[in-house]
């Protein structure tokens, strides 16, 4: 098989998934690029044994009193899922519609939002936004339970425009107020009891109770509103319809998708005064958005099949987020055929690298790209990967070593050891400078199964492996 096909497939799987083993890359490449994209877009997953596994063996990942339980539930899913793009899109929306524990003190409520992203994240953006507006975690996160007829709370309305659809610069303060009016009466059931428990961080008497959406017509402002130049007795759904029609919304979503899947952009606050890295690419995605009636799957199909995505110029142009990095390593090492206590440690290690699932730094989510890296986090990343790959008893590492070792038991050359390690860790391309360093190390240690583990550790520390 053409090695270039394998390397392109490796690029696709690093971005649309969490990387892949060399065997998986070979199987995908045999199916063809476009067919693999379709498989990623249509995973067809139904009953997933992993969900039962994590609930049985990690009980807080079932009851989810607090956010680490809900995070572990999701991380285990990311590690074991056969639908990697579905999980990546779930991560994408979790980053863009960032909701977290400081106000939503209930792991199950957070987990149900994540499930909603998983269920709707590759469908209609209109439907997704509508469900987001009804989502109990989002309602509590942005105080819409305090948004009443005659006494509006603008928090949800403001962020819906600024961070979830149009972006800064495309609307007025009056639009925010009118938007808030349209969402009055959109709240959660049993508001008083749930808020009392939340304020007291109460999990008594029988653990948390999850929240449900409730629409209170008597608390809704049924009056006429003017929103983005349109007039009517708008309710929340009407506002979302109007938002989805806006070109600014299409551009904002397109730039987010480019930023997440194609190449790192500056952080979102810089977007109003920083041109997009590839304006033509954004135009292409905007066109796909409108052509498909806001269908995210259609936009992704265009993105992954585009020349700008396949171009070698953008390979390794993204810094892996801690979740991408940790999950990618653990999918390779095969540590979690069943969830164990180690999941607690893996969750914490991801936090130390700068990304605590279900606890983003703010409603703006995490800044991506090079901002994932500082000295301490880099050490965490390298130490983590080093610990994982250095253990040649882990099933995935053993499988890699078996592939690298010559079937006849012959000693392989340092050059072969370097090339086979890079290939088996996901058909990684490295610069000449990186390869020289790896080769020098291979010459020093020589070939053995244990030393393959040493080489894998060094590969994981390279800039190329830290990037996607």
């Amino acid at each position, binding site marked *: 098989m053409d090695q270039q096909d394998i390397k392109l497939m490796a690029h696709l799987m690093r971005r649309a998934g969490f990387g892949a083993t060399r065997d998986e890359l070979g199987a995908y490449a045999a199916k063809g690029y476009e067919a693999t994209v379709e498989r990623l877009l249509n995973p067809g997953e139904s009953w997933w*044994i992993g969900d*039962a596994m994590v*609930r*049985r*063996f*990690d*009980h*807080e990942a*079932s*009851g*989810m*009193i*607090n956010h*680490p*339980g809900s995070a572990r539930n999701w991380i285990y899913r990311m590690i074991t899922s056969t639908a990697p793009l579905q999980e990546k899109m779930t991560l994408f929306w979790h980053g863009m519609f960032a909701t977290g524990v400081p106000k939503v003190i209930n792991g*199950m409520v957070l987990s*149900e939002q994540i499930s909603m992203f998983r269920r709707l994240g590759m469908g209609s953006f209109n439907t997704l936004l509508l469900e987001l507006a009804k989502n109990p975690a989002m309602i509590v996160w942005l105080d819409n339970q305090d948004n009443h007829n005659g006494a509006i709370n603008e928090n949800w309305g403001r962020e819906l425009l600024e961070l979830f659809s149009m972006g800064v610069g495309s609307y007025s303060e009056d639009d925010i107020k009118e938007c808030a009016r349209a969402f009055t009466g959109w709240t959660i*059931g*049993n508001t*008083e*009891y749930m808020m*009392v*428990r939340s304020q*007291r961080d*109460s*999990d*008594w*008497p*029988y*653990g*948390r*109770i*999850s929240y*449900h*959406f409730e629409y209170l017509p008597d608390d809704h402002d049924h009056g006429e509103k003017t929103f983005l130049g349109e007039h009517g007795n708008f309710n929340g759904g009407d506002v979302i319809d109007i938002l989805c029609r806006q070109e600014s919304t299409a551009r904002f979503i397109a730039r987010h998708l480019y930023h997440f899947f194609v190449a790192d952009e500056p952080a979102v606050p810089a977007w109003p005064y920083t041109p997009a890295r590839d304006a033509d690419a954004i135009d292409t995605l905007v066109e796909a958005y409108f052509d498909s009636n806001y269908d995210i799957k259609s936009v992704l199909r265009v993105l992954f099949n585009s020349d700008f995505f396949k171009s070698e110029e953008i390979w390794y142009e993204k810094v892996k987020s801690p979740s991408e990095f940790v999950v990618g390593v653990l999918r390779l090492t095969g540590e979690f055929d*069943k969830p164990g*206590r180690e999941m*607690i440690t893996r969750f914490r290690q991801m936090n130390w690298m700068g990304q605590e699932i279900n606890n983003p730094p703010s409603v703006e989510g995490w800044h991506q790209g090079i901002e994932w890296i500082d000295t301490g986090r880099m050490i965490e990343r390298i130490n983590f990967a080093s610990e994982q790959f250095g253990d040649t008893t882990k099933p995935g590492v053993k499988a890699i070593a078996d592939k690298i070792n010559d079937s006849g038991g012959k000693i392989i050359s340092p050059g072969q050891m370097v090339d086979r390690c890079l290939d088996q860790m996901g058909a990684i391309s490295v610069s000449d400078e990186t390869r020289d360093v790896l080769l020098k190390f291979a010459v020093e240690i020589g070939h053995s199964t244990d030393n393959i583990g040493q080489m894998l550790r060094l590969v994981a520390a390279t800039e190329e492996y830290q990037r996607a």
Partner: protein
Amino acid sequence: MTTLASDTGKNVLEYITTLGILAMEGRGFEYPTDTVIAKNGRLYVTNRSRDMGERGVRVTVLDIDSEYYGTFGHYGQGEGQLISPMCAAEDSQGGIYVTDDYTHQITEFDYEGNFVSSWGVRGSGNGELNGPSGIAFDYEDNVYIADTHNNRVQKFTAGGEFIFSFGSKGADEGQLDLPWGITVAPSGDLYVADWGNNRIQQFSADSEFVATYGVSGRGDGEFLRPSGVAVDERGYLYVSDWGNERIQILDTDGAFLQKLRGQATLSKWATNFLEINVEEGEARSKANLEPNTDIFDPEDPHAQSAHIEKLFWAPMSIKLDDSGKVYVTEGNRHRIQVYQRTS
């Protein structure tokens, strides 16, 4: 209109009370996994804790009147300590045995919680264990252990001497997939909650396959990931149908009799909490704790149970006492629902 899977079928069981409250330490439970109904009239409840950490792991001792007698078996790997307690059983001499699926050990305590002995080493050879869960004594004080990750059941003396093992990974008759709860019926036969195969299997005392009950599904008499089973003197099966978040009762022939989705009320400890915490108690009294079920996915009972507090949520084990009471230990609701046989 979508409705929850309600309590339907013949009226074999009737609800009588709920025990427990969530507590990280002391009086209460935190992710309880199993209950021993001991011959001294007390209940010994194993708790796994929230983050598998130091505070919540323990055995809580109480009785059906919610009298609290203390805790033992706290977190650690020393004598009489536990890391991940999973299931428990009593021998004829009043020994309380707890399985630990992290240390792969079985630890015996006396009624007062004093350490007696422990045994078990990790492995896959005869007498070795990998993630033990279900435990049940026969009438000669030998003990069966569900050796979960070895996909088999092993029989030992009470002191831990290996007698025999049976089962292997698979879905054929007599094979097992991550077995969980087990029980010895009055007939002396062994029943195994064959979790991964969505069925209960019956074996003779010397491990011969006898019968299988249930197929995968959400219908009457079908199971999803059953966690435990109890059998009465008539041969009726009481199954904690964990993946369906319900209890089912089958007759001797395996015919469906009744399913229960749960109807917990406030325990004495819960009532006490809400009386002391007035603001919370008042807010709760105004809340509708049984919202319209249309808003929940009927194919997702786990989510339903997260929203409606009275429903079973993670029924980890089901135990039957001599007076016809059935105790359902609920991991995610940190309580025990007690039912009474009506016939």
